[in-house]
């Protein structure tokens, strides 16, 4: 019992912290700046607790208390670490962002913490109903965060789109869960896996249909083809820190549960893999085509997020259900999160008031005026593009290695071709920043040192993560 609660401690800290923050803001006891520090503190404490569990390691898994619905593995711990770190950096960059933008209230931060608690639950959930609950805790908070700037018509449009489609995805998930329960008489991953191993995957239509619906829901949340269309508008409408949060932490949580569900049984995985192969290819190339044409940075980053989903799907295709460790997926998620979050953190203080700088052209000549920020953004972009010695390169190396090792040479080559194409839009921003004369002076005073400091820490992380060895 104590051991179970210990393992759950990060989730408890985050959940309790979110409720405390909410109460404090309801009674108007704290300003939104204090809320920012408070939420950052919650994330930091939970991160350190999670980290200490990772270092101590070998904590016994959950006993029967949670009845097998939650499972802690190294993969879920790693995903939890990524999510908490993303939360921390989002809180800090929001603090700077809201010095230049005015629509903030303390509830913003408490929603971010709530979303994180949903995500943490999701990484551990091994049961369909808990996955659904976690998904909804996370999504509801994110819906509100996307539309937080109520006067802004674009963000209102974004939240409407996201809410409608997200509700559909949630409904699909519930229906899939119901079908699977009808077929296998259980919602636990382990028991579903045992049922499939015993009776085969293609025995009942309910099982096939149910898993199809669940696939749809996951693909929607992960922004994969053909459910990727919402991403660009929603990311564009949300404020910069929220976009960064969605692009990194949310994706980590979704891929964690996706991988956990996929590997419950070999035949389920084998049934899905040939579709995931095509989905992954289309996700990469459609994402690239969308990204190439964009003028707005946020939209380009949204589209590049789709491309990275494609790479992660390559890793999912290559996982084996025999000895699943998820280390490749976790590493790639960390590498991707550092790069993406870094760009968004830098944008949160460079964007100016009301996000007036948001296109490629607005950042022309940044390197002359703000050399360190431009260098940091370049490093993040090079990491996302997969140029060594950054974390993004190592992530890509592991993914391609595991794909070729699993016999998916075609997929590996297509992934490489896609990353050649993606060089264009990452380089384009670097070229704009370095090789043009500046029109804008970029001379406004940065109101807070938080976001620049976070950017600096993330730059170090880009290189530090790349040195961390991973077992495939």
């Amino acid at each position: 019992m104590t051991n179970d609660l210990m393992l759950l401690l990060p989730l408890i800290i985050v959940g309790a912290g979110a409720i405390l923050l909410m109460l404090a803001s309801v009674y108007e006891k704290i300003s939104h700046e204090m809320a920012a520090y408070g939420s950052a503190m919650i994330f930091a404490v939970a991160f350190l607790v999670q980290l200490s569990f990772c270092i101590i390691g070998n904590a016994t898994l959950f006993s029967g208390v949670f009845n097998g619905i939650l499972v802690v593995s190294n993969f879920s711990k790693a995903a939890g670490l990524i999510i908490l770190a993303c939360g921390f950096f989002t809180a800090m960059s929001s603090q700077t962002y809201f010095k230049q933008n005015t629509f903030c209230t303390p509830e913003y931060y408490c929603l971010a913490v709530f979303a994180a608690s949903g995500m943490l639950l999701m990484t551990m959930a091994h049961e369909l109903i808990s996955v659904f609950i976690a998904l909804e805790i996370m999504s509801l908070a994110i819906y509100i965060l996307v539309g937080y700037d109520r006067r802004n018509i674009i963000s209102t449009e974004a939240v409407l789109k996201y809410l409608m489609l997200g509700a559909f995805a949630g409904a699909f998930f519930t229906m899939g869960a119901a079908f699977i329960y009808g077929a296998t008489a259980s919602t636990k991953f382990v028991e579903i896996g045992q049922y499939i191993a015993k009776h085969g995957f293609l025995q009942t239509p309910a099982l096939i249909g149910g898993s199809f619906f669940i696939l749809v829901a996951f693909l929607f949340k992960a922004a994969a083809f053909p459910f990727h269309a919402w991403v660009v508008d929603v990311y564009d409408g949300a404020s910069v820190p929220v976009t960064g949060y969605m692009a990194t932490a949310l994706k980590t949580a979704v891929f964690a549960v996706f991988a956990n569900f996929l590997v419950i049984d070999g035949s389920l995985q084998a049934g899905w893999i040939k579709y995931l192969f095509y989905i992954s290819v289309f996700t990469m190339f459609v994402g690239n085509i969308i990204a190439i044409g964009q003028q707005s940075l946020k939209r380009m980053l949204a589209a590049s997020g789709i491309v990275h989903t494609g790479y992660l799907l390559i890793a999912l295709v290559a996982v084996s259900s025999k000895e699943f460790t998820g280390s490749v997926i976790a590493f790639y998620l960390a590498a991707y999160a550092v790069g993406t979050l870094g760009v968004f953190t830098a944008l949160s203080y460079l964007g100016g008031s009301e996000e007036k700088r948001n296109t490629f052209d607005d950042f022309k000549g940044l390197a002359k005026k703000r050399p360190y920020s431009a260098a940091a953004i370049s490093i993040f972009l090079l990491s996302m593009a997969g140029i060594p010695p950054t974390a993004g390169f190592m992530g890509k190396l592991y993914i391609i290695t595991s794909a070729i090792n699993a016999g998916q040479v075609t997929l590996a080559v297509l992934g490489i071709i896609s990353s050649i194409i993606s060089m264009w839009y990452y380089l384009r921003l670097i070229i704009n920043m370095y090789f043009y004369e500046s029109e804008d002076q970029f001379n406004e005073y940065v109101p807070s040192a938080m976001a620049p400091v976070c950017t600096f820490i993330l730059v170090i992380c880009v290189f530090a993560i790349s040195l961390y060895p991973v077992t495939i």
Partner: protein
Amino acid sequence: MFEHLLSVIIFLPILAGLLLLVTPASKTIARITGLTISIAALILSIDLYTGFSATGHLEFVEYLPWIPSLGIAYHLGIDGISLFILMAGSVLLPMVYLVFTTKEKGYYANLLLVQGAMAGAVCAADMILFYIFWEIMLLPVFFMLGLYGGPKRLPATLKITLYTIAGSLLMLTAIIYLGVSYHAQFNEWNFAISKMAQLNLTGRVAALAFFGFMIAFAIKIPLFPFHTWLPDAYTEAPTATTFVLSAIMAKIGVYGVIRFVVPVFDEQFARFAILLAYSGVIGMMYCGLAAIAQKDFKRMLAFSSASHMGIIALGVFCMNVQALTGSIYQIVAHATSTGVLFLFAGILEDRTNTRTIEDLGGIASKAPVFAMFFAIAMLASVGLPGTSGFIGEFMIILGAVKFNTTIGVLAGTTLIIGVCYMLWMFQRVFFEKTNSLSENFKDLSLIEGLTFLPVIILIIVMGIYPQPFLSKITPSTALLFAQSAPVVAQTVTTNALLPELTIEQK
């Protein structure tokens, strides 16, 4: 002198370059730092050269496991092939800081970065480590070209960057394919270059991996038909970048072929060698003819460099010890002669503000020392006996005739084209009448003269007494062929009978 010599040669310039970039150092401090560090690297390389005992195997090995589960390691080492490319870089780069004294901080910092990365690529004994340095090499070139290049620099920058990255990412796939094949065949993860020669690679995927490597290196060299980025990039780049690209980076492409393709893909290499050799010869001819037509002397030198890279590559494709040894010798000879020629072109451009051959004339009478140095470098570049260029070209042609008479004859006759464009250009720029632009041309200053003198002497020494250099190269090249001896012997016999037909039948 001390341990970890290779690591110091690699990381000293990289760290110094990064330090310059993050601190607000002035131009002068940047230049002095660059000069000091590159001379320090030169001294360390000379120490390395004297300590090198020419066993043919890797020497000065450093090994530190990095990703144990995949067998990836920080693994450095150097043999007779890599030693000379490393030396060429160390000897030539200090000159840049002495010749170009008024550039910006970023210019010098990027030069330091590229020097370290190139040394790393040459010393790496692990494929992943090689790839990492190979890619890092490109970044300083990207920034130098984009920031300090000529008026049409942006398209040139994009062209070289996208071209090179496309090639190297395909190579990454091929590298990983080799690692996975090694795991499949020997049940152990390893990415060490030396281990890959044991692999038994057959089938379509192996041929694709072969081309993955070959295309990446062909783009870097550049080999016909992947040379289209070269004229733009070489012309628009600032002189130091052109110098780095042509004198050293192109050679690392050839080095890659020798290190990866020849020992690992012996079967595929033997099968496609004739095709590659023809592409080398065609590149020689085409770029040579294009060089004759150029009006801009920097562009002419760019095509001339590409033409000479064709013959160096040809030496590798001939699959015998003479041609390969000649290639490595020619790598050093070409690095010194063409490198110096590009630096001279930079000086010409700085002092006359033009790159058009027609605008110049009569410089020899105004600047006799400059003209003499230029003439020596130029004659070495066209391969006059008594200069370094002759030895290498002679050995390559010898090997080429042994490999395939047609190719040998074609390559031998194509060398004449080089003489045509070089001498014609020399006549128009240095002789004839002076005009308004060349009237006030200043000769080399004492410092500049002393900077170039050692290299000019090296050109002549290498041409007259090549034995000390060859004795360090030969053990490694001989070992390279000893490893894959059975296959080579077999292919020599098949090549005697119309090899094109055997390719098509397969």
